[in-house]
């Protein structure tokens, strides 16, 4: 009976109902869109960061991260690779790299860069360089004097494919080594800082530059999709235990990029704060509308009381009214929000217009909003539960009216 009464009551003033429904709709809609957008942004950022020569699991010398020096190279990288192969699920891609700091120079310019010796064939689908858009071409395995540099760096050096660069770095024995390279390709990356940070040479060339065979400084692992999040930690632990005798450090991407993981945690908190802020704005609207609806019907409540309706029933009726409003608004908002994010989740939102600013934050240029069921549930729960809580006030008000009081009002 209460539901029926409540349902009928809300349609007695369709205009007011429409306004409050719109408010709830916009609130929920914006919560979902915002959540999806920021999730998409965060995902893009994480993907970019992992692509940026990080990988999901990385094996390094324990001191390499604090002092990226060739003397902190891996002991016996071949054995470690073989060990990893036996531990990791099929589909995992394992690639060793030689990464050292060095200097790249041509006749006019010099820049400090990170020299990365890679197996070009193995980088496909592992790091950005494997399939980066490129002028010229990527170096090949065993290329002794080929180098690939970033477009931003090439701009600064006023150089192009086919020209010469000289790399200088500290060799494995501590001496200074330098070699000449020819530019085979100039890659572009989403982030300009990346283009300036890395030059790539083949693993063989890097070995020669370092004057040491098999001097990989890291082994990076890219995992199949299902292992990337929840199932990552046990896998890392398994590798850590197995590689114990080599005295190496094994880390998952969350440990490798503490700034990113901290940012992700902050993101969650930030999202819920946003939900509450949106709700507070909306909450006042709800209280106001329901209160108005209640005061307008004072006489009616008095009458109901007079014919024997219990105060608790009145509370239930008023709460029922707000519940219908909230539920309808939430449903509409959720459906529209999901539809819009679904569309953009495939098409992507191009932030090309703000590319400069976006790049600075290490985000992708195109963002694919991602719906997370948890966020949708949270948004709806916040609105419905808190909506009902704030409606208690007008409901109790309504229940307190005495018949005599209401008669006297008019």
């Amino acid at each position, binding site marked *: 009976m209460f539901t029926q009464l409540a349902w009928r009551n809300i349609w007695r003033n369709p205009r007011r109902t429409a306004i409050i429904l719109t408010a709830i709709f916009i609130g929920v809609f914006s919560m979902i869109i915002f959540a999806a957008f920021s999730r998409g942004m965060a995902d893009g950022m994480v993907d970019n960061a992992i692509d940026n020569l990080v990988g999901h699991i990385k094996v390094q010398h324990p001191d390499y991260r604090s002092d990226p020096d060739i003397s902190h190279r891996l002991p016996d990288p071949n054995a470690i690779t073989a060990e990893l192969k036996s531990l990791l699920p099929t589909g995992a891609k394992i690639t060793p790299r030689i990464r050292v700091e060095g200097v790249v*120079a*041509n*006749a006019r310019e*010099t820049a400090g860069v990170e020299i990365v010796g890679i197996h070009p064939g193995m980088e496909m689908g592992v790091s950005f360089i494997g399939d980066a858009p490129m002028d010229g071409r990527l170096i090949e395995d065993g290329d002794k004097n080929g180098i690939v540099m970033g477009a931003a760096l090439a701009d600064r050096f006023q*150089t192009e494919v086919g020209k010469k660069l000289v790399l200088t770095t500290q060799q494995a024995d501590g001496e*200074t080594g330098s070699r000449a390279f020819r530019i085979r390709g100039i890659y572009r990356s989403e982030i300009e800082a990346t283009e300036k940070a890395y030059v790539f040479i083949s693993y063989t060339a890097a070995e020669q530059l370092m004057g040491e065979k098999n001097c990989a400084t890291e082994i990076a692992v890219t995992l199949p999709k299902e292992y990337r999040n929840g199932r990552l930690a046990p896998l890392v632990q398994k590798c850590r235990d197995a590689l114990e005798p080599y005295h190496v450090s094994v880390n998952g991407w969350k440990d490798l990029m503490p700034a990113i993981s901290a940012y992700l945690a902050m993101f969650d908190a930030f999202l819920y704060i946003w939900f509450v802020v949106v709700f507070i704005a909306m909450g006042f609207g709800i209280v106001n509308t329901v209160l108005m609806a209640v005061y307008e019907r004072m006489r009616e409540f008095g009458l109901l009381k007079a014919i024997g309706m219990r105060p608790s029933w009145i509370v239930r009726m008023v709460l029922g009214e707000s519940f219908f409003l909230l539920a309808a608004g939430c449903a509409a908002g959720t459906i529209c929000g999901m539809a819009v994010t679904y569309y953009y989740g495939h098409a992507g939102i191009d932030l090309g217009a703000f590319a400069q600013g976006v790049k600075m934050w290490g985000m992708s240029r195109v963002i694919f909003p991602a719906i997370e069921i948890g966020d949708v549930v949270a948004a709806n729960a916040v609105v419905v539960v808190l909506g009902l809580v704030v409606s208690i006030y007008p409901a109790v008000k309504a229940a307190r009216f005495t018949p005599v009081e209401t008669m006297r009002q008019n």
Partner: protein
Amino acid sequence: MKYRMLCCLVSMIVLFPLSVCAEDGAPIVEKAFEYMRGETSVAVVEMTIQRPDFTRTMVMKSWTKGKTDALFFIESPPRDAGNGTLKKGRDMWIFNPKVNRTIKLPPSMMSQAWMGSDFSNDDLSKTDSLVEDFTHTISNVREENGLKIYDLASIPHEGAAVVWGKLELTIREDGVLLREAFFDEDNQLVKEMITREIANLGGRLFPRVWIMKKAGETERFTQITYKELAFDEALPPNLFSLSSLKTKRR
């Protein structure tokens, strides 16, 4: 048969100057290198760094030995006195008396300016590269005051760790270096060193003034003027060592 010999003779006559032009210039460069550095050398030079808004002059004492070893100390101004540079092989160390420390120059600093001048650390550290990393060909020979002057085009060996696309050297017959120009791979001039005022220094003819200038600059250059110079003096053993860099041996 006669005709053939004639042909041969004609072609020899015609081609002879050409073959001179394409002659290997390595011996000339090697000779110049030895001439300019001697087995050992001791010098006092004044280095003037000219900039649009200031001019800085310092006096330095230097010792060199063979192709690769060198030691420099600043003598004045007093503020910089005692700053030293040691070069052994291709490695360089600098010493600053204020912090009483020697620092081995890392690769990242090799292409930076040496003591704020237009010379880079690389110019100093890779002196022997000129002999080892380049193919020198004589592009022109002319005569001045009875001495032949060779223009050489020096192309770095493929694979040599040299940033330049080409060097141009002008060397006098007796081994005096007159000009060294550095070009990038597009054959654009990057910087140029010229020497002037050839005088009798340390018992041989030697340019007193050396000027290093970046291409397109008129107000910025570095000039080195030799005040004293002596060749082939006996140097104390272990002069080119870190300890003498620290103790500022004179």
